[in-house]
């Protein structure tokens, strides 16, 4: 039996945990706070991944004096060249990483912004369904679009920290980057939801008509929420492309979206810390399953199916018996609330 590599296990688990955390936190912003039932989370994740992968592979070839249109990155020659050239120069790698993250944010965010237009005037069911089917169409398109590799996708995406040399160290630096982005997302979303905009989001979620009557620009706020949420998901997608060093259309199936939904519902809608706990539990379960499955040998029933049945049942059971999830939604943190708390603790009596 091979020796158990604890650090390797932790680095792998935490990287996947980080990627899913960004998706779960932004989904919680959209669904838990703004009431946008985004069943197409995977769309924005996928756009980010493809934008990151395409930019990195094409530019790596181009900046190393290889014509990417004569020797495209999805051909065998291109892949050989990419393995040869990729991740050699620190400045180029870091520059491409930054560029990809930015482009992924803008591309995914813009698609999210534009997709709000057809779904503004219809209820949550139509929103969910439209985004879900858009994801499936994106997959069909990517499968047939040759410049991004068609059904085979893009492979040999140069690692951003490949120039470090030691692969363990480079994946550790990458983990730090992912966790940094998780922290950024968490802090940004917390600031956002504890601001006046956060109150507006909850107002829109709880009663759209009331929010509209109070003069809130409901369509604008929905579009903005989807822009921010999708933008961050796009960045997670770009990081995912670097992590797996390959993308293909079948990575972006609706199952990814449902996974994230299950995490958010388990953790509690409207509570970001809850989402992170949900992600931790789910990704840990998956990692452990990946260890256990080979030990089971050939089974009649695939453990994968059991896992998915469990995910579906979990969503239903949590909604039925624990509708608030593990951690319930908290009131907004405002200066007025702090003042009121202080007064209560001090026994009141007024100023």
């Amino acid at each position, binding site marked *: 039996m091979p020796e158990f590599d604890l650090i390797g296990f932790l680095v792998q688990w935490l990287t996947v945990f980080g990627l899913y955390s960004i998706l779960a936190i932004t989904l919680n912003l959209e669904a838990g706070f703004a*009431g946008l*039932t985004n*069943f197409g989370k995977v769309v924005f994740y996928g756009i980010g991944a493809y934008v990151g992968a395409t930019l990195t592979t094409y530019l790596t070839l181009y900046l190393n004096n290889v014509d990417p249109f004569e020797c495209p990155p999805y051909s065998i020659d291109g892949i050989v060249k990419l393995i040869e050239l990729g991740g050699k120069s620190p400045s180029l790698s870091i520059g491409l990483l930054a560029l990809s993250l930015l482009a992924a944010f803008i591309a995914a965010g813009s698609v999210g912004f534009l997709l*709000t*237009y*057809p*779904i*503004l*005037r*219809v*209820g*949550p*069911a*139509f929103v*969910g*369904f*439209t985004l879900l*089917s*858009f994801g*499936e*169409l994106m997959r*069909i*398109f990517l*499968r*047939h679009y040759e410049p991004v590799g068609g059904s085979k996708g893009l492979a040999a995406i140069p690692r951003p920290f490949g120039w470090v040399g030691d692969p363990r160290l480079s994946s550790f630096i990458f983990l730090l980057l992912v966790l940094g982005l998780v922290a950024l997302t968490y802090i940004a979303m917390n600031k956002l939801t504890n601001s006046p905009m956060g109150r507006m989001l909850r107002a829109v979620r709880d009663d*759209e*008509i009331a929010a*509209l009557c109070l003069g809130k*620009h*409901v*369509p*604008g706020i929905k*579009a903005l929420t989807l822009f921010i949420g999708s933008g961050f998901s796009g960045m997670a997608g770009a990081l995912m492309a670097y992590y797996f060093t390959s993308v293909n259309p079948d990575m972006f199936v609706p*199952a990814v979206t*449902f996974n994230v*939904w*299950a995490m958010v*519902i388990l953790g509690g809608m409207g509570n970001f810390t809850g989402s992170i706990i949900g992600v931790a539990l789910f990704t840990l379960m998956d990692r452990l399953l990946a260890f256990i499955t080979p030990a089971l040998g050939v089974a*009649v*029933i*695939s453990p994968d*199916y*059991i896992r*998915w*049945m469990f*995910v*579906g*049942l*979990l*969503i*239903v059971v949590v*909604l*039925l018996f624990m*509708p608030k999830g593990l951690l319930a939604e908290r009131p907004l943190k405002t200066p007025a609330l702090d003042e009121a708390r202080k007064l209560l603790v001090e026994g009141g009596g007024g100023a």
Partner: protein
Amino acid sequence: MLPQVLHRAYLRCPKMPQVSWDVLSSLTVMVVHYSFLYMIFAMPLTLSYRTTKVINFVHSNFITYGAYVAILLNGLYGNRNMLLAMASAFAIVGGIAVLNNIAVFEPLSRRGAKPVALMISSMGLWIFYKYLLYTIIDLATHFSRVNFVSYPKIVYEWIPSVSLDSVRLSSSFIATSLSAAAMIVGLYVLLEKTNLGRAMRAVSDNPILSEISGIPKRTVINLTWLIAGGIAGVGGVLWTSYAGAITPEAGDSMILQVFTVGFIGGLTSLTRTCIGAVLIASIENYGITLLNQFFRVETSYKPFLTFVTLITTLIVSPPLGAGGGLPYRLFRRVGKSA
């Protein structure tokens, strides 16, 4: 025949792509066939939504389960009687639908959960049923040594195929059109002429008022689920007589079309759902053939046409009554009153 005369006249037009009569007639038969199939798939969706107010993602499982009831009967017991398969599918899938309602939707709505929570729970059930079916199929394949994961088309006995003046109508077409006609007549009689139908319409129009008037709302909703699930299951059986190969993804692969048809009907009107079925079937099949002829667009892009129709429906005539929704503008017109 008149269509053939028109077609000959069309062929004389210069600079038009030449479509032979055989291609055109078989395409039209396909459009009619798909229209009937979409009606059978989408009308129960509309029916269940307007009475129960649940956006039911499990609907795609209903179709798949219906198909697999027929397949398991055929593969394990050699059944080739379509009526038997339909009756079993109606009972089993309708039973699943009622079970869903009793176990999940009813407790949730009794607690006052929002429609969004109902929809998310139906999504959870969708995932559960999908992988439950995979498990059942794996077990059946393991014990019977028959490949159920991709099952060929079933040829049912007793159903004839008809040839009409160079146009061949397959036995699947005959079965589908007869079933669709029976369903439409049945639903019409049920909803317009019987007390149960009146009660169903009353519950869908105003649940509170109907309860006050003494209509047993729970029973009506359960019966609605039975009928809706049952019809979708029968649709699945019909699909086994048409599709080239049936996989556990059969229902999921049609979910875009089925829901778009339902949305065109606003999830409230059965008549408009029928029109939507004809519309989607025509746009998909004629549209992709034209695009293929003129621009060499691959036929696998077919769902894009449906999606464009969906988006157009949502923008031009959004189903405002269904599932909330308010008339908005995206950009505020500054300085002008709305």
